[in-house]
């Protein structure tokens, strides 16, 4: 059974990125359970997890949010590649935070970045998926923790 501390580790990893990179912390919205397939945004960073728990954790954000984030970071390159890199960075922070908190209990993969809104995220039977809205300025992204 997923514990609150484990869930918080992924949430804190996400909100910390905004706090450090944009000097403006993100807040979380009301978490809920995933019903059916998740609605992903334009850019999605995925990490696979094995070991004590198995599954995936992904961060999915709309292009508009990433654009404002890049602007806030004094970036002027809003290309597709740069957006991918940014989502990769967020996901990297999430996995780094998880490594730091969980140590060897969790084996965490290198993040991969997917684009488009019609994605098929691998979903194992028996996995429980929690969706945590990540609110930053007027935008909203999602963190999905889908672990056994």
């Amino acid at each position: 059974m997923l514990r609150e501390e484990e869930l918080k580790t992924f949430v804190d990893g996400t909100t910390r990125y905004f706090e450090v990179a944009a000097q403006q912390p993100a807040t979380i919205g009301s978490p809920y359970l995933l019903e059916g397939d998740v609605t992903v945004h334009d850019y999605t960073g995925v990490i696979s997890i094995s070991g004590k728990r198995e599954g995936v954790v992904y961060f999915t954000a709309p292009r508009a949010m990433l654009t404002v984030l890049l602007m806030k970071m004094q970036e002027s390159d809003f290309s597709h590649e740069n957006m991918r890199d940014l989502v990769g960075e967020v996901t990297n922070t999430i996995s780094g935070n998880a490594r730091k908190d969980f140590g060897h209990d969790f084996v965490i993969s290198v993040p991969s970045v997917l684009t488009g809104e019609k994605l098929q995220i691998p979903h194992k039977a028996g996995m429980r998926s929690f969706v945590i809205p990540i609110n930053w300025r007027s935008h909203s992204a999602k963190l999905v923790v889908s672990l056994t």
Partner: protein
Amino acid sequence: MQFSRSDRNGRLLIAGAAAAIAAVMVLVLIAGFRLATEIRASVAALQGTSVLQTYPAVISQQLTALRQRLQTLEYTGHVHRELTRTVRNFNLRLAAVERRNLDPAAIRHAESLWRHYAPQLAPVLAFSGEPYDDTDTGSSLSARGRKYYDQVRQAGIFAQTSAPVLHGALAAVSAALQARTSAAAARLRTLLLAGVLAVVLLALAAAYLQLSRARQQRAAREAQDQTRDILKTVREGFFLLDADYRIGAVWSQALTHLFGRSDFKGLAFEELLRDKVPADTLATAVKYIKLLWGERARENLMKSINPLGQLEVSVDNGRGGKESRFLQFDFHRVMGPKGVKHVLCAVGDITSSVLLARELQEAQENAHSQLDMMIGMLRADPLQVSAFLDSAAAGLKHVNTIMKEPARTDAEFRKKLAGLSRELHSIKGEAAALSLMSVAERVHRLEDMVAELTAKSELTGNDFLPVVLKLDELLAHLRGVREMTARLVSLKEGPAGAGTASLPQLRIGEAREPQAERPGRSCADLGALLEQLAGKLALDHGKRFALKLTGLTEVPAGYLETVKDCAIQMLRNAAVHGIEPCEARRAAAKPEIGEVCLQFRRLDPGYELVFQDDGAGLSPEALKEAAVRKNVLTAEEAAALDNRAALALIFRPGFSTRESVSMDAGRGTGMDLVARSVYGLGGKIGVSTNPGRFTRFKITLPAAGAAAAVA
């Protein structure tokens, strides 16, 4: 501490021995000096006496020479001067011997002899001038000369007899002085020997003490090494707290690992736990430590109220992150002669034990809940359980929908709470009615969480993380209930029916609408469900009442769910608040067995549900008092309410007359759920009561709603 005291004693003993050696040496030297001085004086006196012994003979000789010279008319001046000098020297030396006062008796004897001798010599020595008269015929003794001659002769005669006696007396003085000198020399020798012996003995004692001390030091070093090894190896953190609640200079190595720091010396106990435990826990811990220093506090009693028996702390995990650990603090007072000297603190890491205990408890709870679930399901009709599971799935889907609604502000988060409470309360009521206590208890805990959030001053998304996890856990449990129901059905129906007995799997995304397709729910099921709930409530609350159900067959399918929800909530209210205990009923001259009636009937148009109990009734004053007590209304607002408005308080969300929450009452959600369900269908609800006699709820439902609900 013991080693250092012993070491100090050893040092003191050695210093004492050295001081004793020095004292003995000083005493020996002083005594030796005095003896040497005495010997030197004796030797000097002996030398003087030896010389004195020769004087009587010399004086006698000089008198004889003087007499002869007078006889032969020779010059006498030289001899006279010699005699005078000899007598003066004798007097001087004798006086010197007398001054030394070494043997007074012998000297006094010699002196008395001399006192007789000296007057004989005095006229001889007093003579001056020439004893001769010179004439032409030659020289002859003058008259003075003749007298002088006679005096010399008489003195000579006296000298011849007295000289040996005086010599003998002086020899006796000499012998006494010799004996005295010898005795002093012997004493000096003995003294020196004793001194040397004492010094040797003391030196040996000092050497022995030094050896003992070296042995003790070696033992102390070994003991210190062993203590260090113990402190390095032991898995508990040990340290001493002083009267200022600060850590002493020695602690076990494990403490560094437990707290992720090493600067413990002089660290205040409060600082040790700051940022690792909540502020209120820290305050309690500090108060407890202060209590330990009280002379009157009993250690066993103190142990029983130890607030740090199992403390969850957050510490660095060595990878830059934090991790939770469970620590157990144990305190022992170290007593000194003046009371409590230190408090020994032992800290153990009991994380694995706590986690294991939790797992065991979880496993036990699971086993119990499985058993409860089995018992509940054996009692209940599987189709009723299946209908409940469908209903619960729909309810939880609604809960998830409420959770899903976007929220950023406190108001938006707070808005979710009332809806969550109502849905959960409804599910709990039906689960309890079916005796599915494992489900009811889980929902109850979830309701507790929602109630805690309601009490919080500022809500954020983080506050809802435990709620969503609990919701997930509840869903997982409901899946287990569904699987078990399917197995029970297959067991009841045998192998032939196994294929048809499987019930649809519950998954939040796949839950079916309960109103749309619900194979098991019927009016008969509702009756049985309410009967079952009534029996359980009577048992749980020690009440006795009969439930009379009328007209349930008239309930249209579209209203079945609403009637069920309302009936469950009102029945729970009647059992908890309405029906009095048997003794109270007897005292009020009422039948011992209470009566609860539920009547459903078709009106023209619409429907009517009347629910009545012959219990204590509702007291508008009691309701107003509860509203003021719970800050729902001010005293002025409450006073302004008429009876009708006071009775309407029971439909307020979160309002309850009870002070504590139980499985069946106290949250103030049940009647809110009833009212909302009825109003949601366009119905009305009325309440009438006669305190001490009855409470009656009359619900009217529109005719159109029944069809709409079905659709």
